[in-house]
């Protein structure tokens, strides 16, 4: 992919930080508002897509590193499954933090309430793990396919 015009790049520079922050907001508030790990991860991933499209696949390789993404992906997944495993004293995927008083362990007010970040047990942690996994998975997929597209284009021209 070639890089796009200066207008696009400037707007991208301006916007992508907000998109990423919005994505992380969705991830972090998954247990209170609509959204969650997947949705937020997809939003962050779209910021990467924007960067990739506006700067072109060759230039964006300088600041989007596939290795780091895949490291984060593995880390997120491992965190997720470890959270599942840590409920194993009772059952796999047991929500051992909910209503326990420790991290995210406050009991929710039953019924309609304004929302409290410190509830949900393992759910916010899992949201973060999954969010991390999804955003880096999107990053890896985008970068790999963009590089693959360069390959096929070279083939086409030769």
């Amino acid at each position, binding site marked *: 992919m070639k890089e796009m015009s200066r207008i696009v790049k400037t707007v991208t520079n301006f916007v992508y930080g907000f998109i990423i922050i919005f994505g992380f907001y969705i991830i972090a508030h998954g247990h*209170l*508002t*609509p959204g*969650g790990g*997947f949705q937020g991860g997809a939003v962050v991933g779209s910021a990467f897509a924007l960067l990739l499209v506006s700067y072109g696949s060759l230039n964006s390789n300088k600041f989007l590193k596939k290795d780091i993404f895949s490291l984060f992906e593995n880390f997120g997944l491992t965190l997720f499954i470890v959270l599942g495993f840590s409920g194993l004293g009772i059952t796999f995927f047991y929500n051992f933090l909910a209503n326990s008083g420790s991290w995210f362990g406050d009991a*929710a007010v039953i*019924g*309609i*309430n*304004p*929302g409290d970040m410190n509830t949900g047990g393992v759910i916010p942690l899992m949201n973060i793990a999954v969010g991390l996994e*999804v955003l880096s998975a999107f990053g890896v*997929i985008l970068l*790999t*396919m963009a590089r*693959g*597209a360069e*390959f*096929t284009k070279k*083939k086409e021209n030769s």
Partner: protein
Amino acid sequence: MIGNLPYIAVAIFIGLGIYTLMFKKNLIKIAIGVCLIENGVNLFLITLGYKKGAIAPIYTQAPSGQAMVLPTPQALTLTSIVIGIATTALILSVAMMIYKHYGTLDTDQVRRLRG
């Protein structure tokens, strides 16, 4: 009949997807057909969960006294959407690989394996 219009939209979605799979000759179009079926099925799931006049099943600052839509289909749809993304990404990558080696995306030519 008219009340079931969303289900008929689902049927049309799936039907169009199947039509694409059966009669379109381009691998990318076939991938689009799979996406169509998938969207139809997702729409079907989400349609099943709808309740007239109900709100989203979230308690944070919800308007009081209203019924909530069924939450399970939303969870299922979320799962199946992500699975769909994964499938589509893989299909497109394999199609790119085929293009790299065959130089074409026509199903009539992408058939070295036959007989």
